[in-house]
């Protein structure tokens, strides 16, 4: 019998009534609400906006007037708001908890940055307004460029690439343009890419027609210097190297690699996805890098937004800077000017290789990134790198006896484990990751990098407190212990408590259903 409070309501829990799982009439689980597809809410006659029909006028659509029903759902505003709020509750987010996705840098997203991006003088400005009406926007781009150049020690920058992979494409195009200018484009057809690279690196090189040649890794998780040197030759255009690399390690031989690349007449493209580990402490320009993209949505904390938008500005060495694409901002005595055509560039004496996108790049991300940089300053950014590296090493040191680390530390901003600690348990990396979901965590990056078996790559970032990381470590220790003590069910069926259990991806790919379609009308009764 449970206790009663003075209003006669039970004040303690009587858990004798129901045991274990409990299904509901609605399918809902208290705060967790099932939600149909938008199209299943269709209620013809409802509408979420109020606009009056225009006054009668003579149409100028000619013969192009759209006929028939489009099929869009008709829904009122409260229903639309509820629909998307309910959907949002089915998502994990960095605002809710630690999001240790290695290589993705899921750090805190300050709301100041959101506020700045929504200033009318920033968010409500058209890219093709007369230049005298956008001087502040051009100043902002110029200021961001200055910060990126200072932080990387590189003299050139292209702001327009829309995301990391787009930045890679931009960097490799600049390299190819420089080789063309030297008359060596035909001769240099090979790009060296370590086995541990992000998939975007080989995909980018291949898009430009390069032959991708994989460089093996050493036992300590780094580029095999001898194997790399053996692959260099007069037909090599570039190396694409991530540093710190995807194993979370700094490439110790990087200066020697850069020198060898340059000696062979090739260029050094650095994938800057992991710049967070070294920002403010190490400048890629001092390592011999020729081009590097910077994911503003990683290092400089513009929100990932469920998979974008990102921004991938590219910094360039002296050798590549003249080939940076259109558009770019210059400042003169009459203020700022955006150079957006080949004709204008010619007058300027540069040789831009072309254009990556219609307009000027991700302005909305530029302002967020600049707000983030200004907030931290030179001192705060250095602290970012130090705390990111400290947190990762703390995770590595705390877990190396319970899990298995393939490489000796110290690591940089992410701690890599392999699946040796799961050997013989019947639990695989995937199962281990899915069990973390029931514990309230987003899993780490799994099965990447490919050079490690059953990889588990953890990037805590600098915005986690020690208390948060301690609980995370304790949780992983408990899971590792459970896996080793034959508590297999906790893993292989996991997750049990998330809005959805494991999803059948094979079925999804075999017979793709990529859009909603109205149900077939039932056969009319005779």
């Amino acid at each position, binding site marked *: 019998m449970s206790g009663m409070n003075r209003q006669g309501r039970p004040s303690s829990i009587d858990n004798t009534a129901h045991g274990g799982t409990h299904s509901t009439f609605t399918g809902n689980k208290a705060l967790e609400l099932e939600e149909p597809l938008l199209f299943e809410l269709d209620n013809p006659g409802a509408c979420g906006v109020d606009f009056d029909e225009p006054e009668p006028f003579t149409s*100028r659509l000619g013969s192009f007037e759209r006929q028939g029903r489009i099929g869009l759902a008709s829904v009122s505003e409260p229903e639309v708001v509820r629909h998307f709020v309910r959907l949002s509750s089915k998502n994990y987010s960095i605002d809710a908890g630690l999001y240790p996705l290695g290589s993705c840098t899921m750090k805190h997203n300050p709301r100041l940055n959101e506020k700045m991006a929504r200033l009318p003088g920033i968010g409500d400005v058209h890219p093709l307004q007369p230049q005298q009406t956008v001087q502040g926007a051009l100043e902002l781009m110029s200021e961001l460029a200055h910060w990126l150049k200072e932080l990387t020690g590189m003299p050139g920058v292209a702001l327009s690439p829309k995301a990391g992979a787009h930045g890679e494409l931009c960097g490799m195009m600049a390299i190819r343009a420089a080789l063309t200018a030297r008359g060596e484009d035909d001769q240099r057809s090979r790009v060296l890419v370590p086995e541990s690279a992000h998939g975007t690196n080989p995909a980018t090189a291949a898009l430009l027609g390069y032959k991708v040649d994989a460089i093996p890794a050493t036992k300590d998780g780094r580029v095999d210097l001898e194997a790399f040197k053996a692959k260099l030759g007069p037909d090599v255009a570039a190396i694409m190297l991530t540093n710190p690399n995807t194993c979370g390690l700094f490439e110790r031989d990087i200066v020697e690699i850069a020198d060898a690349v340059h000696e062979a007449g090739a260029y050094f493209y650095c994938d800057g996805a992991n710049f967070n580990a070294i920002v403010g402490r190490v400048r890629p320009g001092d390592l011999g890098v020729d081009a590097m993209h910077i994911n503003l949505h990683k290092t400089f904390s513009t929100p990932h937004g469920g998979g974008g938008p990102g921004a991938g500005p590219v910094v360039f060495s002296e050798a590549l800077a003249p080939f940076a694409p259109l558009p770019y901002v210059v400042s003169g005595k009459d203020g700022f000017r955006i150079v957006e055509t080949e004709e204008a560039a010619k007058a300027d004496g540069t040789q831009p290789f072309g254009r990556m996108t219609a307009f000027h790049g991700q302005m909305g991300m530029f302002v967020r990134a600049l707000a983030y940089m200004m907030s931290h300053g030179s001192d705060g950014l250095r602290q970012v790198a130090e705390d990111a590296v400290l947190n990762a090493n703390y995770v590595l040191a705390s877990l190396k006896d319970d899990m298995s680390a393939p490489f000796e530390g110290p690591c940089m901003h992410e701690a890599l484990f392999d699946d040796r600690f799961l050997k013989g348990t019947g639990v695989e990396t995937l199962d281990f990751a899915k069990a973390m979901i029931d514990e309230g965590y987003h899993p780490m990056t799994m099965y990447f990098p490919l050079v490690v078996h059953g990889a588990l790559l953890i990037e805590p970032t600098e915005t986690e407190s020690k208390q948060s990381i301690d609980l995370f470590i304790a949780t992983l220790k408990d899971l590792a212990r459970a896996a080793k003590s034959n508590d297999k069910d906790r893993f292989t069926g996991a997750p049990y408590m998330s809005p959805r259990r494991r999803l059948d991806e094979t079925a999804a790919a075999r017979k793709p259903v990529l859009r909603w379609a109205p149900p077939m009308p039932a056969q009319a009764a005779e």
Partner: protein
Amino acid sequence: MRYLPLTETDRREMLGVIGAKSVDELFRDVPESARRDGLVDLPRRKGELDVERALGRMAAKNVAAGSVPFFVGAGAYRHHVPASVDHLIQRSEFLTSYTPYQPEITQGTLQYLFEFQTQVAMITGMDVANASMYDGSTGCGEAVLMAHRVTKRRKAVLSGTLHPQYASVVKNLSDFADYELEILPPALPDTIEDVAAHIDDKTSCVVVQTPGFFGELHDLRAIAEAAHAKGALLIAVVPEIMSLGAVTPPGEMGADIVVGEGQSIGNGLNFGGPYVGLFATREKYVRQMPGRLCGETVDADGNRGFVLTLSTREQHIRREKATSNICTNSGLCCLAFTIHMSLLGEEGYKRLARINHAAAVSLAERLAKVPGVEILNQAFFNEFTMRLPKPAAEVVDALAEKGVLGGVPASRLLPGVKEVEDLLIVASTEINTDADRAAYGAALKEVL
């Protein structure tokens, strides 16, 4: 620093567990020559108030579109975005979530992507759409590469209706990937372009924009027929997606791939980005598509759920054999699009499109009365081209002096092309009032 939770005590304790004397020790793999002891030459940290001041000062130097009579388009359009859109996309669970690689705890993102794909397929009149590209122009480049894969040919023909900066993006990609390209001269609205004459047995695709760069609506049916007769694909580009609420969709005119700029629905001008590229095609080409796709499936309990699918096309699985190198897309901009489109619904979308058309017709009628102005378009949606008695760039600057942002001079994007020097491209949407149009008419009269 307000975003960094570790205290000095924490740091000391953690170094103790690691067994390092200082954080410098953790950086010992960095070559000596590249270690920096001091700070980089940039300002120190700032509080929120100071950052707001610094950025507010820059913002104040721009003329916000909403503060003046505004008629600028040419690939980006100012529309009213309902308040609930911006509120909902700022929910932490959407804003601060990653790509939905763990579907069990990202059903929110996956379901709206599925809804987005459905909406895009519906409005373009196509079978399927992907979960977005960076923007319309990069989507256009990817569409050309996709057509080359489908047809196993190497040459694309770009109509003179295509936005010049879209054409530059395609040219850049084609040049570097060693494909052939034929770019037709600018197709003024008062001339007829014979695209079909440029299609031959080597052509993989022809790219036509409607509404075109000069605002003209173009019939795609004959071009589609001509392309298909030679085994080529028709790629239709729609930079003003609001138009499809009123105008025959490319999918009903024989297009094989439709590329759109989705900025107009749910997304602000943002000085050019982030925007959201729409990409739709026929069912039979789905495995040649670039970008992420979200599909329906069931979970272990038999409940409906959604996952990213057909990822064997993508770089993280296929590496150098992927259909594209794209990874991050425009997730949050898709969400803004989907929410706004949900609010509009069937009737709202169509009505808003009619209002846009009415606004542009009203403006065209008014400006046609200004002495020296000639409207070149036959059929248009919310944007048209005027021929002026003097260079359009000068006129636009003079209008700006008078506090009217009057459009885009064609010469800005087509410098050195003599026949477009006096052409001004003008857009009008639901944001313009009669007073705005009157102000434009009066100012134009004065500056001509």
